């Protein structure tokens, strides 16, 4: 018995070790010193990034980072001018393995070692951890998460990049109820984000006269097979399944539901993208018939999206997701905001000029159209929703 307990302890330790030891630095390059070099008026702005670059969410992290890197590369070709000095951007990236405590430690390090006025982080837990001290330490949290709580906290130096998920509840619910029926089985992922989504969606669904016949969370870090859970969910005879999480495992859930004979619709949480799910399901939208989710970037028709998709395909040899698009775009917005505020290190001044940055954004950089930033620091984007109808991505008009 003692030996067994000892072993269990060791295993736990092993996983903790595995988690820590991989938090190494990637990318980065030399520590660009701010200020003038030689007689020329040239400077470097350090921008921070802390996200999952190893571990189960590494793929997501790399996608977000790829957008930033692309923007930085383009911007650095010419540099940008603030107050008579030409600046280039040095992107400092640190790995946090999706762990909020690591994000906080990384941000402290980025701020102290590199004096970064802006730190990007692509997950709600990490954002919440940074909001504890970003106002004191004066840096902007460039928050990539559609979790509404991050702007409701009233943090004055946060910019929420993607649209708030509350905008999806109504179109998703209306569409699915009309097309398939009132019985919903909710299978959100066990993450904080998934749980918040489900908590917002379920009351809305019930208010609209629907019924939730099954509700249970999927843990993508523990479940090896979804048949068990889906068998139980489908036993309740739902018309619609609510699923979500990273695109690929979410697609597996949808695929296994179809294998088990499910013929209804899917409500796909905005984290998963229909085009990425399609790739896992044999490259056809057919099994996803009746799924509703965010508009895939490759199908979007904003002024800069076609251009961006083309450039991304050329450099990365795959289709960009919205993470890459939003990060690409927001790096440009921050650069424009720095120009408008006349400073590259005063986070408050930069934050005050984000609206000017949005206004000054050139058309060809508009991968998405963001007319304004709200009082609370969230980009106000017209959400764009698509459903799969007759095996085709079909835009769904919002009122």
């Amino acid at each position: 018995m003692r030996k067994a307990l000892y072993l269990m302890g060791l295993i736990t330790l092993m996983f903790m070790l595995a988690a820590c030891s991989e938090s190494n630095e990637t990318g980065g390059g030399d520590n660009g010193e701010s200020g003038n070099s030689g007689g020329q008026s040239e400077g470097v702005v350090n921008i921070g990034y802390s996200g999952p670059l190893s571990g189960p969410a590494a793929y997501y992290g790399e996608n977000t980072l790829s957008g930033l890197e692309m923007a930085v590369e383009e911007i650095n070709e010419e540099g940008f001018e603030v107050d008579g000095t030409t600046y280039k951007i040095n992107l400092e990236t640190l790995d946090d393995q999706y762990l909020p405590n690591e994000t906080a430690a990384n941000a402290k390090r980025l701020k102290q070692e590199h004096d970064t006025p802006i730190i990007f982080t692509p997950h709600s837990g990490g954002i919440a951890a940074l909001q504890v001290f970003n106002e004191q330490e004066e840096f902007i949290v460039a928050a990539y998460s559609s979790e509404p709580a991050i702007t409701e906290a009233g943090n004055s130096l946060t910019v929420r990049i993607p649209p708030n998920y509350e905008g999806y509840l109504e179109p998703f619910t209306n569409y699915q109820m009309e097309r398939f029926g009132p019985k919903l089985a909710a299978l959100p992922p066990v993450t904080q984000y998934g749980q918040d989504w489900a908590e917002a969606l379920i009351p809305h669904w019930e208010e609209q006269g629907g019924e939730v016949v099954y509700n249970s969370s999927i843990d993508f870090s523990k479940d090896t097979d979804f048949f068990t859970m889906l068998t139980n969910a489908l036993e309740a005879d739902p018309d619609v399944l609510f699923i979500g999480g990273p695109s690929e495992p979410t697609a597996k859930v949808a695929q296994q539901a179809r294998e088990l004979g499910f013929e209804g619709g899917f409500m796909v949480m905005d984290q998963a993208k229909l085009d990425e799910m399609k790739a896992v399901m044999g490259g056809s939208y057919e099994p996803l018939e009746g799924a509703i989710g965010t508009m895939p970037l490759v199908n979007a028709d904003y002024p800069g999206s076609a251009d961006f998709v083309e450039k991304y395909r050329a450099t990365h040899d795959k289709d960009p997701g919205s993470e890459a698009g939003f990060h690409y775009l927001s790096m440009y917005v921050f650069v424009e905001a720095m120009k408008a505020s006349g400073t590259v290190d005063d986070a408050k001044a930069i934050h005050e000029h984000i609206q000017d940055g949005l206004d000054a954004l050139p058309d060809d950089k508009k991968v998405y159209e963001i007319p304004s930033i709200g009082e609370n620091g969230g980009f106000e984007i017209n959400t764009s929703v698509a459903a799969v109808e007759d095996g085709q991505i079909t835009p769904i008009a919002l009122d």
Partner: protein
Amino acid sequence: MDVLFQQLFNGLTVGSVYSLVALGLTLVYGILHIPNFAHGALYMVGAYITYTMMTSLGLHYVFAIVVSIISVGLISVLMERIVFHPLRDSTPIQHKVAAIGVLLFLEALAHYIWGADYQQMVTPYGQVIEVFGLTLTMQRILIVVTAIVAMILLYLFLKKTYTGASIIAMAQNREGAHLMGINTNKVAMLTFFIAGVLAALGASLTSPINLVFPSMGHLVILKAFVIIIIGGMGSIPGAILGGYILGFSESIGATYISSDYSDIIAFVLLIIILTIKPQGIFAKGEA
């Protein structure tokens, strides 16, 4: 009733994979008394090799698995030679640290070679079959049948062949086996080879119903450790039975109690079994 049978089948599928992975772990433990933390990484490498063989060389799924199990078997032997063998006279904690080191190395290597993306392994056996109201897929039947055949072959090998008997002999008493003229080095390498083969087989079978990614080993290795503790460290029937106990308790527990508690159910079971049989179900006298 349909649900019960469907869930029993689901439990059988998952349990088969658990058993295969746990078998490799328990074999190595039985012989060398090393908790091989790197076993999950071998599992992951097995899935990647099968995947690469299928996508880059265009091999058929079955041939890709054959290549994969042989390569992972050899990697496992290599690991024994360059990591565990030189440590044979050191304290157990050094083995454990070394095993964790190998785990981290293999994971980082996979991340470097194949990237962090989720990969999709396409099986030629994706057909859905309905039998008496049960939904089966060919792949799932393949998992169950292959796992059972592999277990029977392993059993026959250990019980009926001289080489197999030498593995058992060494598990019972390393010194004694050595004195009887058994080449303990050879047996250790053979054991690691079999463990690698089982890990790669389990991973290659289960990958088409899930995905292939660098940290996929974590999903099963923790469960495999629970299984060999339930079954008795180093016990072969224990690993098989333990695997199915865990598989069934997860699927049945999720159905009749709550799916949010399916892990708790498995761990409560672990505690109960350890309370009644502290050495595990099939413990040998000394563990």
